[in-house]
């Protein structure tokens, strides 16, 4: 008997290296959405709110990428937005952007382990550790990405641009309820975002309010419809 090999039988091997849309058996895997953005902008709160809104209609799992191990995962567990077995944490060695962009191997394993352990899933949310404006997800890891900023972080962020703001499939401007207190110009932010992003969507949210996450949840549902009907 080999005490370390118990799991080998439970978890079959994979044949894909990255996020190929179909699994080895030809079934379409879960849609993978990444959430990135600066520290404190509300990524974890957005994930929690999405889970609460969508968990009754979709089978969801979450991968967190903490700077310090498991901090965000612990938050989600405390908030009980999903059962513990649906949340897993990836350790990033003080380099959160590396784990979602340059070396995605640990995140891919985490996503696949969740799929293997939980059976077919509809949606996997991959939350990045708080990082800077240049951090984006690799296409090898996620199918779409959300970049979360907040009005309190400075209303010039959309104007400054950067890969996250410019190219994310959805830009979320969070904490709109704080705008009057920090003197942020929401209309100006919307204008700047439009200039940087063209037709790519922007959602203004205030997660403190009832139903505050709705614009993001609606966008996720739309992506999921497109994914399920996908060509490959």
């Amino acid at each position, binding site marked *: *008997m*080999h*005490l*370390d090999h118990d799991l080998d039988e439970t978890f079959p091997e994979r044949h894909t290296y990255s996020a190929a849309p179909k699994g080895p058996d030809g079934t379409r895997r879960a849609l993978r959405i990444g959430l990135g953005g600066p520290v404190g902008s509300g990524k974890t709160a957005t994930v929690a709110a999405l889970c609460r809104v969508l968990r009754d209609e979709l089978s969801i799992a979450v991968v967190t990428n903490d700077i310090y191990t498991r901090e965000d995962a612990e938050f989600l567990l405390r908030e009980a937005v999903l059962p513990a077995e649906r949340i897993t944490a990836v350790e990033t060695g003080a380099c959160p952007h590396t784990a979602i962009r340059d070396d995605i191997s640990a995140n891919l394993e985490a996503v696949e382990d969740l799929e293997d352990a939980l059976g077919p899933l509809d949606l996997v949310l991959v939350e990045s550790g708080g990082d800077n404006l240049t951090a984006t997800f690799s296409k090898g890891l996620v199918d779409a990405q959300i970049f979360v900023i907040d009005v309190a972080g400075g209303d010039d962020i959309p104007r400054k641009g950067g890969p996250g703001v410019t190219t994310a499939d959805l830009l979320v401007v969070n904490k709109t309820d704080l705008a009057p207190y920090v003197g942020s110009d929401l209309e100006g932010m919307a204008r700047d975002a439009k200039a940087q992003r063209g037709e790519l969507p922007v959602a203004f949210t205030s997660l403190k309010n009832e139903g505050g996450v709705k614009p993001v949840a609606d966008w996720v549902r739309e992506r999921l419809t497109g994914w399920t009907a996908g060509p490959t």
Partner: protein
Amino acid sequence: MTLAAPPTVPAAPRAAVGVRATARVSAATSGGTTTLPVLDGDGPFELRRLRSRGTEARVCVVGAMSAPLGGDRLRIEATAQQGAALHITSAAATLALRGPTTEPATYDVQLTVEEHAELHWLPKPLICAAGSNLRQTWTIHLAPTARLVLREEQILGRTGEPPGHVATRLTVRRAGRTLLDQEAEYGPGAPGWDGPAVLAGHRATGQLLVVDPAFENRPPEVQLLGDSPQDGQAVLTPLAGPAALATATAPDALRLRHLLDTAHT
């Protein structure tokens, strides 16, 4: 082999090349108790039978001369035959000293434990005195149902002196597979031995190995031992087979033994 006991038999002559000696012990069951059909001392190894405890036969290795010294070739072979219970200890610490040659001394221990047999190998520590140079091996063969408790401790230098050089290899084969294979090298000439990855200034290190088929179904749990790093630290961990290994480092022999005893309870 040990310090304390005075020789009771004429010691083997120490040639310029060093002593060559092999001691042998074999334990067997007979009428519900363990007997010792073989109990042959040799050279520095004098073997004394101690009072039995339950069905267990007990043997003490007593030093008949100072050994190992550079150039010595020492060997002990012990076998617990099917169903036997054998306990081997030593009367005093083993002191490795600089010899007449700069050649290393070798000290090989071969332990064989047959089906349903049990062997305790619990000698006193090895002290590597300044200028000594020793290669020690433990080669252990275990049947699938055999049980083993083995402790080995190295004290690097006597109080206030620099350590000698010691290289060890512990190989445990069980049911045809290698369960544990570990080399260690400490003292002058061993790269990095005293640095932050290996001993970090500690002068005592040792291990306690317990192999028990009962661990197949109930693997031992990890234990972190040692409350304050200045008193040494240890972990007790399950191997990738039915065995537990405690690994410890400490500033001195006393605190090392304390850690290993804690692991064993």
